[in-house]
């Protein structure tokens, strides 16, 4: 082929390509969920595009740890995508207050979500909702069924049974009783403190009382979970101080540990990695028959860039996210991220079913530090990571940790001053 012909061919394809995209509206989604890239590309986006010809969607995630910083810079520079994946509470509220996120209160699809589901993406007075809720994650413990079978252990219901099981596993020595490390700190707070804590502070009752200033972090209900966490150190693997989050995941999926303090988001990864049967149990209560509380944390939502030139197309997409179709695709492709919509979403994964069944037996709450309380300096969430890790390592007493957190909170939060 002569150069001219190649040139003509190239020109023709360029014209064709521009011709096609001239009619299409292109939407870009900002997200921290780079793990979900294939799910979006292969399932969600094709389903949406089939139903809405003329709108093309691109999923453009960035690394989770950098997401907030990257997104803020992009929004300030005006180069952010049309659709923005929303972190719960203050991170998104700040974006809304700064005029980066559009008010979506009038969106039709919003009718499919309960007030609790929307609470993470509303202004403090609840007058405006700025993100469409996508999913929540539930905390609990995932265990190795084979290991429990070998050792003849029952699933623990109460705290006494829980520690008895850990003792038995430790005694036997084949398995590390519990896979968790303190190197990355957040597991200690998220999968430790906020996992077992709601049973002590009675879920929403304690959480709202803390926000209102009626309870303090030095109260028994808030210190007792630290006292329990302090006992965990004995049951973690050798050198857990330097064990990272991926280390813990690998230790458990390789079958070297019996129990994994978990969030339901682990389900997909664990299903792919582990070749033994897994089960899940909810955070143990103090005495048998006590009412149980679980952390059913509103974690992820989707909002619209207020500066988006494609607002109509973006609203079409967000509206579609309120449908049963989206809820079904999302919940089943990502077992462990449970739909927040009021649609009845059947799930196939047994582990996910186990987690979601607790919603019927226990009272749901969200992580204690997320709403309002982590607004100031020192940041209560970050301090809780530090305190939980220190308590597990035995370097700070539960009482001291509670006092330190309370002092920090009281230094800026009016209801606690």
């Amino acid at each position: 082929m002569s150069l001219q012909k190649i040139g003509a061919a190239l020109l023709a394809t360029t014209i064709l390509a521009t011709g096609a995209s001239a009619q299409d509206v292109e939407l870009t989604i900002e997200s921290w969920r780079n793990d979900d890239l294939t799910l979006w590309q292969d399932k969600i986006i094709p389903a949406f595009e089939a139903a809405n010809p003329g709108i093309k969607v691109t999923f453009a995630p960035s690394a989770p740890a950098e997401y907030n910083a990257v997104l803020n810079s992009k929004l300030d520079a005006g180069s952010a995508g049309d659709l923005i994946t929303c972190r719960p509470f203050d991170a998104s509220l700040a974006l809304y207050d700064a005029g980066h996120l559009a008010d979506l209160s009038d969106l039709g699809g919003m009718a499919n979500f309960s007030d609790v589901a929307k609470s993470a993406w509303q202004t403090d007075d609840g007058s405006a909702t700025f993100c469409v809720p996508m999913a929540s994650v539930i905390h609990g413990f995932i265990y190795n069924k084979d290991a429990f079978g070998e050792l003849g252990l029952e699933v623990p219901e109460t705290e006494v049974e829980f520690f008895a099981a850990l003792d038995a596993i430790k005694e036997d020595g084949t398995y590390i009783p519990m896979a968790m490390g303190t190197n990355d700190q957040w597991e200690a707070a998220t999968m430790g403190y906020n996992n077992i804590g709601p049973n002590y502070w009675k879920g929403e009752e304690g959480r709202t009382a803390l926000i209102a200033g009626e309870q303090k972090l030095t109260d028994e209900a808030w210190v007792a979970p630290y006292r329990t966490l302090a006992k965990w150190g004995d049951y973690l693997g050798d050198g857990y101080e330097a064990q990272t989050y991926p280390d813990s995941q690998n230790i458990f999926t390789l079958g070297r540990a019996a129990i994994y303090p978990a969030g339901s988001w682990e389900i997909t990864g664990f299903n792919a990695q582990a070749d033994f049967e897994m089960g899940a149990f909810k955070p143990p209560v103090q005495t048998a028959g006590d009412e149980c509380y679980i952390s059913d944390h509103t974690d992820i939502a989707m909002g619209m860039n207020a500066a988006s030139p494609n607002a109509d197309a973006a609203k079409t997409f967000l509206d579609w996210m309120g449908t049963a179709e989206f809820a079904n695709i999302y919940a089943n492709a990502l077992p462990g991220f449970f739909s927040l919509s009021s649609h009845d979403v059947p799930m196939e994964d047994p582990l996910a079913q186990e987690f979601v069944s607790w919603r019927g037996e226990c009272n749901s709450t969200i992580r204690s530090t997320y709403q309002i309380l982590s607004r100031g300096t020192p940041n209560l969430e970050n301090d809780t990571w530090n305190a939980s890790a220190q308590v597990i390592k035995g370097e700070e007493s539960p009482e001291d940790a509670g006092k330190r957190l309370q002092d920090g909170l009281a230094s800026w939060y009016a209801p606690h001053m």
Partner: protein
Amino acid sequence: MRTSRIKWHIVVFLAPAMLVYTAVMIFPLFNTLRLALYTEVEQSRVFVGLDNFRTLFGDPQWSGAFWNALWNNCWFFIIHMLVQNPIGILLAAILSHPKLRFAALYRSAIFIPTILSFVIIGFAWKLILSPIWGIAPGMLDAVGLKFLFAPWLGKEEYALTTLALVSVWQFVGIPMMLIYAALLTIPEEVLEAGEIDGITGASAFWKIKLPLILPSIGIISILTFVGNFNAFDLIYTAQGALAGPNFSTDILGTFMYRTFFGFQLQLGDPHMGSAIATAMFGIILIGVCIYLFGIQTRLRRYQF
């Protein structure tokens, strides 16, 4: 008066470099210094003078974190000065020995870590030292020293020193190369003259070579100082932005990053972040000035 004419070609040749440098270095630097004097109230930027610095040094929450980071940074620097630079000089002295075979191979091998990315270094060492998968416990076990192993990166008392030594491992090639180059420039005649006077071997190093390479050591010290007080990458890749355990590896760079860009639920505060960056700039400026006016001017230089 021919000499007073403006030499336009100099201006033209300097302009591109000056413009680029101004755009990417000088302007951001001064803008950061300016940003430190503002704060954000109700979505708008308000001038508050030195208030941010008052908070940084006066509020116990902030000043505690700041002094902790500063001391950690000093310790990081001390380790580099006590370990990296002497080892670098020693390696250079050995390498410049005329009878050493495979000198080029050793030189490249020692220098290679310097050109690796921080991310690779951070993750590689994290894996090597991991109590679970790492080869460090196994190697210590093989020589019967298993009892010496500890999860170093997870212990408050060891983590910073461990990371400083990792950084030393990475960068020891730089002082080695600079000193090596300085040693090569020492003329043979000087050494031969010393030999005739009976100064050979180790005493030739201490009495002739070392005084001649002192200016290079000075430059290396100041490079180490600036590099260490700007450090961030290694700590961030190995321990994350919270610089655990319990902030024991928190240096000014990570403290600034956390404040400026925010972390997890903590929202970024560019103004306090700039205040910390300004403090870092001040510390480095003072350090460099002490060196330039206190030490550099007193060093004796020899011309051959």
